[in-house]
């Protein structure tokens, strides 16, 4: 019987956990004070040693990303990506809503490490209460001298600007996020140049996820050694898993990396809803390849195990689907979402996602022929790879995995599909 390892979420069930007073009671901003007394490069080294990997989806080592900043830069921005929009992922919301100061402390420490005096928090437009609480928390931090011209009495400067998005999924892509903050149309930029060299307003910029930054005070407080003691070697630390779908107790759970999916499902989430059989699992947010029940039973929830299984841990948004789920219907919903959210910049993605969505919808309605199904598979490969950002891959992966692993379900909905039962006497 496994249990939650509450490191980041240790405070979220307390009353008024979102206030500075409550945060301070639990030793808040001590890590920041400690970090500010250190050399910035020392802080970076600790984060690098901890092996912290980005929690936004790609899992890129955070400390390594920080060292990509050019040495001779004159100005640095930190952007906090709080535009959590991946279907099935809702863990940043919990931090923003229930413990915003944890993330702000992480921002203070990170800005010190990056020698940045200005951080931007790009928060998803639909987050209403988290937004209000974040604004209040930043206000509190300014009033308490944690932000402003004299950060924690050290004489250093740090300003935080909160920017509310307007509801576009693509603005969670880091360069689209930069464009959106700059007041431009929210669409990804061509890389290179990478944001570390030419980012927000043309300045060196680091973009980190909310959960990633929430890990930073913990690392500073505990030290890299203790932090590494949790999780696996290549995926250290704990992870906030957003579990949704057909489970008895959906929600956000903090577990160590490397926990088996089976244990998580049965011990933490209370098993599949109504005791029904498991059919499919999406382990890392809607855009990663789906797993069958059989595959998922062998799955461990860390970056490298997921990759071995042919999927990705992504943003750790676990979507559980039981035997009653119509996989064609599920893909229909998903492709509809992606077709709506393509920024429309690159030709293959703009035209392809809409086309894919239309074909899946046609199949789901039972109006498609086998030629349409073949076309769908064909389109999947056509869209992938030739675009500015990885959005098209995010469409390609579910389309290919759903149609391959649950092919019979798709075929049975085709008008000219082979009859399911053989004729008597044939």
């Amino acid at each position, binding site marked *: 019987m496994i249990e939650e390892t509450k490191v980041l979420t240790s405070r979220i069930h307390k009353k008024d956990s979102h206030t500075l007073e409550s945060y301070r009671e639990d030793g808040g901003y001590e890590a920041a004070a400690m970090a500010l007394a250190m050399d910035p490069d020392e802080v970076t080294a600790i984060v690098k040693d901890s092996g912290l990997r980005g929690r936004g989806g790609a899992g890129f080592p955070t400390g390594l990303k920080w060292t990509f900043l050019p040495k001779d830069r004159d100005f640095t921005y930190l952007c906090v990506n709080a535009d959590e929009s991946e279907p099935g992922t809702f863990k940043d919301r919990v931090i923003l809503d229930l413990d915003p100061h944890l993330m702000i402390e992480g921002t203070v420490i990170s800005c010190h490490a990056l020698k940045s005096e200005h951080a931007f928090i790009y928060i998803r437009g639909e987050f209403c209460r988290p937004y209000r609480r974040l604004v209040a928390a930043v206000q509190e931090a300014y009033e308490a001298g944690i932000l402003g011209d004299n950060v924690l009495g050290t004489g250093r400067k740090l300003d935080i600007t909160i920017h509310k998005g307007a509801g576009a999924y693509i603005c969670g892509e880091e360069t689209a996020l930069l464009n959106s903050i700059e007041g431009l149309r929210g669409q990804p930029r061509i890389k290179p140049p990478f944001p570390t060299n030419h980012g927000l307003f043309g300045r060196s910029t680091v973009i980190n996820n909310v959960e990633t930054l929430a890990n930073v005070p913990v690392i500073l407080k505990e030290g890299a050694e203790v932090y590494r003691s949790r999780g696996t070697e290549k995926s250290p630390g704990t992870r906030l898993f957003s579990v949704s779908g057909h489970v008895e107790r959906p929600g956000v759970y903090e577990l160590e990396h490397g926990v088996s999916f089976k244990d998580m499902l049965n011990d933490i989430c209370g098993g599949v809803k109504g005791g029904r059989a498991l059919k499919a699992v999406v382990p890392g947010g809607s855009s990663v390849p789906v797993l069958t029940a059989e595959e998922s039973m062998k799955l461990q929830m860390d970056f490298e195990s997921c990759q071995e299984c042919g999927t990705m841990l992504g943003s750790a948004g676990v979507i559980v689907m039981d035997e009653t789920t119509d996989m064609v219907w599920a893909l229909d919903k998903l492709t509809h979402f992606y077709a709506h959210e393509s920024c429309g910049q690159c*030709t*293959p993605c703009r*035209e392809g*996602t809409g*086309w894919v969505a239309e074909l899946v919808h046609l199949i789901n309605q039972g109006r498609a022929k086998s030629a349409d199904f073949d076309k769908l598979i064909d389109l999947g490969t056509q869209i992938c790879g030739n675009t500015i950002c990885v959005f098209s891959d995010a469409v390609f992966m579910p389309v290919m995995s759903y149609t391959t692993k649950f092919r019979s379900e798709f075929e049975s909905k085709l008008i000219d599909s082979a009859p399911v039962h053989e004729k008597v006497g044939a």
Partner: protein
Amino acid sequence: MAKITINGVEQAVEDGLYLIEAARRCGVDIPHYCYHPGLPVEGNCRMCSVEVEGIPKLQTACTTIVQDGMVVITDSEKVVGERSDVMEFLLRNHPIDCPICDQAGECGLQDYYMEHGLHDSRITVSEKVKKKKRVDLGPNVVLDSERCILCTRCVRFCKDVVGTEELVIKNRSNHAEITTFPGKGLVNPYALNTVDICPVGALTSRKFRFQCRVWYMKNATSICPGCERGCNIWIDHHENKIQRLRPRLNPDVNNYWMCDEGRLDFHWINDDRVLRAEGPDGLMRPDEADRAVLALLSNPGDVLIVASPRSTNESLFALKRFVEVALPGAALTGGSFRPTGDDDGFLRLPDKNPNSRGMREIGIAGDLENRLNGSAGVVLVFENDLLGDRPDLESVLAGKKVVAFTSNRTATARGADLVVPVTTYAELNGSFTNHAGLRQEFRSAIRPPGDSRSVFDVVKSLSGLLGKELGWESETALTKEMTDVITGWGVRVEEETELHAG
């Protein structure tokens, strides 16, 4: 210089070039829609994807900067397949209404489909996304959203070339559309360039829409006579009528662009022309007209000849020689009363005459107003609408015999005693010298209508009647002498090949 290998051939190219431009200079054409050499790169159409050795994914040639030792393949199966895929996607929601589309015949989609697509359609018309077919973006430009492939050339033109930022994209995914902000229009004075750079039929010129099929038109190189900038243009004509003017690449003068004012200023060449010489007794043949003019020239001291900075260098040079050789004693002056405009910092310049500098360098004095107020009783006005530009001159000209050598029925022509038709710049081989001293040659595009003759032919005939020789067998001889005599005019400006994408 960087050494790159394109399709197995090693070539040296300039550092810092985008791969697509480097390849073009090496003679390898990479298909593209969103890339335009006069605009910042965007990399969104994905048509120019090529294989670069060492990089697993295809790279867009328009965003990749050449590096020494780069090995590029532009014709592999993977690249060709990708182009075909992109073509299929571009045509996915395109209405394919070529029969009623003005772009047909010079359309990037048609050209590249024949070259890189040729796939069978896998969609039916009813599945296509419907958008607005006729959006009035501004006074001169009409948008068909369904045809648009969202390459954003027009958006970037307004943002980065003109700086007015009128055009934006609204909506996402396959519902994305070009639009202006609510209540605003595409009103910048260079708006029609967006029609040129649009690789498909999405943006059309309100004046040219449904006027002429492009494959009927012939084109000639010319110079815009709208101001002293001397933008290089194409004259597109059909059945001896000018259908449209388009900018022609010249990095030293106008780059890829021209202003709307100059572009739309050609209807006077097609319409309202003087076709026959006209005197007090009615219409005349050219020889009758010349004799009528001659009759007025008996006392050269009483004659004032008014030249125009709208005339070509060749006309002005011939006119000057005519006065020197055949009519010594007559006064020659030049100038224009055309209202001046503003220097807008881009292309348009204040002086609305194309050849003021040429006239000065040929040596025709600009003391027009003084001379008109002088005592001369006979005024020969060449291609100059004195009364149209300055109606108050009517009293000055009232007591004088006025001969108007003109292409159109101008106010001056209406008030003249004798009207002789001459050609416009579109019917002449000639040259203008722009504000910077650059002498730019152009070719005749259409045939002169009616009895219109060039100024050279007119003065040649007049001097013949006077028993004098101008000294040139042909206009070529004239040009040769002129360019020999005037400093700096012998330099020939090489014509750049036009980079017209799509």
